[in-house]
């Protein structure tokens, strides 16, 4: 009995060890690239079938092989889009979210092959090609997402310099308070420059500014450029410089964050658009059979 119990415990320990080990494995390397191999097998089989099967009158979505590829592609797209549902459900089981994500990435990539072969390389200005192009865009943004998730978090951390986001904002507020009192002796025009700098939204610049890191209408920079030299201005300038540097850190964080997140703003809406286009594609093909 005891031996059996210890056996179970040992087994349990082993299981937990495996789980703990796997906790530190990237979703890309999950289970020794299991899903990469599966995706490669799917792509290879699709290509081999395309080459070997005599499709009459010519290869496209209308042959039996074309229908097969199309059905596989449609099924994959629906399943891949369900990652959004799966990740919101916290449940145990064989299909860990990591496994699911790994499959999502690799099977998503194999869709390039399956989808392209389904088109039979016939491209035009129509709903069918729209669906194909949307699929490629979704995959491309997904690839971008995987790359930035692997590379950018390190620079995000480096940019923080041991400050939290809240502290970055606090630091800016602290500077702003001092700036307000320091600017008291200034003339009207210069005071207006300071007011403009203080009033400008910290997150001014929009998505494009965030992504490029370029803020041509930054009021702090303008105030610095236009501030005259003088005893009273000296301190204001010093504070404005500190404000500019603090903003630069915040904007650095914004840029990295934007580069990390922007793909989802294309990936998700285009996925939904893709499902709509696929619906139109499938229905129209059989409507005008």
């Amino acid at each position, binding site marked *: 009995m005891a031996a059996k119990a210890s056996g179970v415990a040992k087994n349990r320990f082993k299981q937990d060890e495996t789980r703990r080990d796997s906790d530190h494995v990237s979703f890309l390397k999950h289970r020794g690239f299991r899903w990469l191999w599966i995706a490669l097998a799917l792509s290879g089989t699709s290509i081999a079938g395309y080459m070997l099967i005599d499709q009459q009158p010519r290869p496209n979505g209308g042959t*039996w092989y074309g229908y097969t590829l199309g059905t596989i592609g449609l099924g994959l797209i629906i399943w891949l889009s369900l990652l959004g549902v799966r990740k919101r459900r916290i449940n145990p089981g064989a299909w860990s979210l990591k496994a699911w994500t790994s499959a999502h990435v690799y099977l998503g990539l194999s869709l390039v092959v399956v989808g392209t072969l389904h088109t039979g390389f016939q491209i035009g200005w129509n709903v069918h090609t729209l669906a194909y192009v949307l699929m490629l865009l979704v995959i491309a943004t997904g690839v971008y997402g995987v790359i930035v998730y692997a590379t950018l978090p390190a620079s995000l951390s480096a940019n923080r310099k041991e400050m939290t986001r809240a*502290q970055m904002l*606090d630091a800016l507020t602290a500077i702003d308070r001092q700036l307000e009192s*320091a600017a008291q002796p200034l003339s009207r025009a210069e005071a207006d420059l300071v007011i403009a700098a203080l009033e400008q939204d910290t997150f001014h610049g929009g998505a494009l500014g965030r992504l490029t890191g370029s803020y041509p209408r930054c009021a702090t920079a303008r105030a610095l450029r236009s501030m005259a030299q003088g005893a009273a201005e000296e*301190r204001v300038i010093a504070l404005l410089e500190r404000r500019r540097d603090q903003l630069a850190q915040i904007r650095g964080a914004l840029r990295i964050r934007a580069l990390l*997140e922007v793909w*989802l703003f294309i990936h998700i*809406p285009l996925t939904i658009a893709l499902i*709509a286009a696929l*619906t139109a594609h499938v229905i129209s093909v059989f409507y005008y059979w």
Partner: protein
Amino acid sequence: MAFLIRTIDFTAAGREIIRDRVVEQETLTIGRAAECDIHLPDLAVEQRHVRVELAADGTLAAMALGTLGFGLDGRSVTQGTIDPRTGGEIALGAARLAFAREADGATSITIRQAVADEGKGDALRGFALASALPSKRAMSWVFATAILLLLLAIPVASHLMRTPVKNDPKGETPGQVVLDAAWTSGDLSLKHQSLQDNCESCHVAAFESVQDETCVSCHEETGNHAKMPRLAAGMPPLSPGDALQWQIAQGFGKEGPLGCVSCHAEHEGPVRQKPASEAFCADCHDTLDTRLTDTALGNAHDFGKEHPQFRPAYFASFGAAKPVRASLDTKPVERSGLIFPHDVHMNARGGAARMAVSLSQYGAPLECKDCHALTPDKVGFKEVKMEDSCEGCHSLVSGRTISGFSKLRHGDVQDLAADLSRISSGPRPALAPRRARPGQIGSASPYRADFGRPVRAYIGLSNALSPGGICTECHLPTRSKGQADLMPVNLPDRFLTRSFFDHEAHKKEKCTDCHAADTSKVATDLLIPDLKSCRDCHLGATAVKTKKIVPSECAMCHAYHVPAGQWSPKGNAPHYKPALPPKSGPDKTTVAAIFGRAKP
């Protein structure tokens, strides 16, 4: 060194109370304890929390006195430096201590209570890109709705609500369905370009594949390759994938692999329908006899390797109603009813040649084209007319008239009889001199005609139709209903009725290279060249093209829908030429028809 300490408070009414005091010290302590230089009554602050010291270079060094740090310019530290010229801010609990250099050189410390950070979490949201872009959900809705509306709902609705119209073969009716151009999977073929904007002309009903009936509504003249059940029986079995696809498709009402659209695939770009490939034909005809055991057709898969001997149509017996087909291997004997030795006429040194040289209309020995003229389609030859081709030498002149010569009409024995009797209708010469009596109008009178039986005409007709007579130079004498007659002339309009031979394409060859007319002594020789002679130049599609060898697809001589037509890369629609409707009986040939009806 003096510190100017300015405390800013607010009354309950919101009025600002400012208290200033000056502390003449080099260091300051800040904390909750009452003895501190700056006393902050805030539980979050330590009893003695921070000490600020004036350094030699004029900067202020702040350090935590306990283990708890303090906020310096927004950052949490345990020690730090403040340059009073640029200023700095220390945060302790809710208090904010702003350090600045006054004009008199003193360092001012302004203490105010920070407003509680409501909405700070909201501010943090600004870091997310979502704050600068429309929401993913909104974008998804917009895209999906636009696509489903424009590319699905509108075409479907306008298709369902249209008023169906009958197709016009010219394809000039505009389409009624809106935005269905986005559904096309490719341009239509060249011949269907005018239907480009009228999808519903072919896609008539929703979720119904294009039906043969719709195709035939314009292409009425298209013939069937064979009857549908025979086509189905002759087809080789489909691959498992194709079989499954057809099984499913036919379950949903698509016409089978023998429907129009399975070969005439549309939306493959602005191209022309390609001629059927050799492989396409060979699919069925390679081993057709194994599936259609009763077929008369020989197997064929490659003109150079396997193709049955030609089976021309010809009249196998005199006066037959219909031509028959037989393989050239059986050495068919043609019973056209004519006597015509080709060799005599084609001998450049013979009598016929001499005669032709002497005649202005020829001026040279006879050539094939003197009698045989191509039809406009360059496939067959026009009917040889006796009046045009023979009469130059084989004259039927019967006498002299005021304007020239009279001649016997050709083509109808009754006409001949009439012409002959006219010759003998003049005053009959007296057999012996007779004396004329008064009052009697003599036989020599110019007013007398011979109304008696045309005995002489009968004799003349009988002579003409008998062996050795003028008619039997070319025609075979016979008797019908007890009377002398001529054998009807039977020649088919076309010998190779199941294929297409373009004489124009062979005009560099001499006629006699293929048709052995120059050595043919009798009209019973069927001068259609055989398979072997064609293979001198024509081999199958896979043959290597050389100066002499022409790789030949089936479609070079055969068409799918109209056996005697041919696919041609240019020309007006239809691109195959429908065969002439088959004539039956004596109407088969016009010469024969005339003679067949001739009843003297």
